[in-house]
């Protein structure tokens, strides 16, 4: 299909633009197009409709703006720079800077960040600029403080390395504590599901094979006009996770479609409004433009697993997610979006109006985006210290059986000078744990066997885990030792906070 991709079989861009100029292009939003296809069939819809408009309005962390402040008198080579106390990247020329959406205010972190500065600038608000330098012969000034508004800047353009994910995984939480993530607040034990993306309005999903969206495509960006400047980072089109890099002049954009945001305990970001016109150039494009929410698969992932490979809890789709409840096992779980479907719809409608009014033309891409990209993980090449490296091995452990006499165990504890005794079955499978504190309590309450006092719900560790992760788990549960078990819960060793602090002093890499 590679050679076929982008073929203008139904209509050419020139013809579409000519119709736009004349004011008789047929434009529909993606949702109107879906309805039209349902009523009249794909063939007829593809023949009649010139352009389908799309929209999405969601948190897009890989967003930011390149700014040029102009030169002060005397000039400065800004080395460190802040806008409303938000650090701005200064590894560029003297007064060029990049303001990233997730950069957080040094005075109000988790409250105000780069995304908010962009919103404020676009709203016309005054923003405090602070800069420092070491001073050079050509740029003698060493510091400055002033205020700026958007119109004071020479250039201010949004340049977002990754926007408008084709679709996105949904999130839930199987653990027993609340999680605060970039996917929002996730209640314990499958308490809720959150999802992102606009589904049947999603720009990149409506051109699933990337036949019309490519380098140079003119788009709706933040309420103004922008362009696709290439594939986005982590572009993975072969599995429906294509992304875009986009650029557009901040002047001409609107704060209605650029909103600073905060995800609790995660950080700041920017909600970006992106709308892309899809010219119906061939039947394949028509078919993907007509895809509905139920046709767009979404995996619900367990965000309580702190790994880049999170387990899939359920295979769902945008129709189920947008319905407000998802069935997981025998439980009906509330679901809600993080992207605004209302604003996404408004973007698709606005773009449609622009085209109908003859103000916005469709740009044939200069080059199509790749439709395959390997998605590589980051390898940690230095070996990290694992639980297996520092745990007390099985041969040094004191283990006990549930029916063992408390006195006998107490004696062993004293002889071996330990604090934790895992309780195991005949097969060595962990069934409980007893600590010196439990024994003290047994004495006070006159208990006889371990069975009566052991803790049955045991937090454990695996040999291959990083010590750092296990230390965090101990702190979270306020415990000082974890039995180390294999995949079938057989005890392999024990790791204590003592081991971690004693054996790792002076060592790095945890």
């Amino acid at each position, binding site marked *: 299909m590679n050679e076929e991709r982008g073929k203008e079989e139904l209509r050419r861009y020139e013809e579409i633009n000519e119709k736009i100029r004349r004011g008789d292009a047929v434009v529909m939003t993606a949702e109107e197009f879906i309805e039209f296809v349902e009523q009249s069939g794909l063939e007829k819809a593809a023949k009649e409709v010139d352009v389908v408009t799309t929209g999405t*309005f969601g948190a897009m962390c890989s967003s930011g703006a390149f700014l040029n402040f102009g030169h002060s008198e005397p000039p400065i080579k800004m080395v460190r720079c802040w806008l409303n106390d938000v650090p701005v990247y200064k590894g560029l020329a003297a007064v060029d800077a990049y303001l990233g959406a997730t950069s957080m205010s040094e005075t109000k972190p988790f409250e105000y960040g780069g995304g908010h500065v962009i919103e404020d600038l676009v709203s016309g608000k005054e923003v405090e600029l602070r800069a420092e330098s070491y001073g050079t012969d050509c740029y003698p000034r060493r510091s400055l403080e002033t205020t700026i508004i958007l119109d004071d800047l020479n250039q201010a353009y949004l340049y977002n390395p990754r926007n408008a994910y084709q679709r996105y995984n949904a999130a839930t939480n199987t653990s027993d504590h609340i999680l605060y993530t970039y996917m929002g*607040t996730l*209640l314990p034990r499958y308490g809720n599901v959150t999802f992102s993306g606009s589904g049947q309005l999603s720009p990149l999903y409506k051109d699933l094979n990337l036949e019309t969206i490519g380098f140079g495509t003119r788009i709706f960006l933040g309420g103004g006009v922008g362009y696709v400047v290439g594939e986005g980072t982590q572009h993975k089109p072969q599995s429906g996770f294509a992304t875009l890099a986009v650029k557009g002049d901040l002047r001409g954009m609107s704060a209605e479609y650029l909103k600073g945001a905060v995800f609790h305990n995660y950080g700041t970001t920017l909600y970006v409004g992106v709308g892309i016109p899809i010219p119906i150039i061939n039947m394949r494009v028509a078919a993907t433009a007509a895809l509905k929410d139920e046709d767009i698969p979404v995996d619900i992932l367990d965000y309580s697993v702190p790994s880049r490979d999170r387990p899939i809890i359920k295979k769902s789709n945008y129709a189920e997610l947008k319905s*407000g409840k998802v069935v997981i096992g025998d439980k009906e*779980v509330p679901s*809600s979006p993080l992207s*605004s479907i209302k604003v996404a719809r408004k973007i698709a409608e606005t773009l449609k109006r622009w085209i109908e009014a003859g103000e916005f033309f469709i740009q044939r891409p200069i080059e199509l985006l790749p439709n395959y990209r390997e998605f590589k993980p980051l390898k940690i090449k230095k070996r990290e210290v694992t639980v297996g490296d520092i745990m007390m091995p099985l041969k040094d452990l004191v283990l006990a059986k549930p029916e063992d006499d408390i006195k006998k165990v107490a004696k062993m504890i004293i002889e071996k000078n330990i604090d934790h005794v895992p309780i195991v079955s005949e097969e060595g499978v962990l069934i409980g744990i007893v600590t010196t504190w439990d024994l003290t309590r047994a004495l006070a309450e006159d208990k006889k066997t371990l069975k009566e006092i052991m803790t049955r719900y045991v937090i454990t560790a695996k040999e291959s885990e990083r010590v750092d992760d296990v230390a965090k788990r101990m702190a979270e549960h306020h415990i000082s030792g974890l039995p180390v078990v294999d995949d079938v819960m057989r005890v392999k060793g024990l790791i204590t906070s003592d081991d971690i602090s004693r054996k790792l002093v002076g060592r790095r890499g945890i």
Partner: protein
Amino acid sequence: MKVKLRYSHEAASKPILAEIILKTGLLINIIEAKLTPKEGEMVIDIATQGQALKRALEYLRAAGLEVTELRSLVEVDRERCISCGACISPCPSRAIRFDESLDIEIDERRCIGCGICISACPRKAIQLI
């Protein structure tokens, strides 16, 4: 009807809620409680209305509690809200939903004032009142 009760030092040592439940047979749900032996605050939901509710409130006041009727616990700043929905599914009492035009709607009768929506809101558009 949700009611906020403030316990003084004397009131905190008496089983006032237990008494009122036994006496009136009303169903009372404790939504939030911060009590120490000295004083405290509690939000309860009394499953009744009209005369019976009025009598229950009178009883609570007579027992020495400061009683505030809660009509609404949180409010949405429509200027800040972007109708994303991030507050909806985290709500443990399912008090939040989209209305027909996809704006956020909070059902005051269901809201328990827990405040999860406040931290869940990426726009900081929800406040306790």
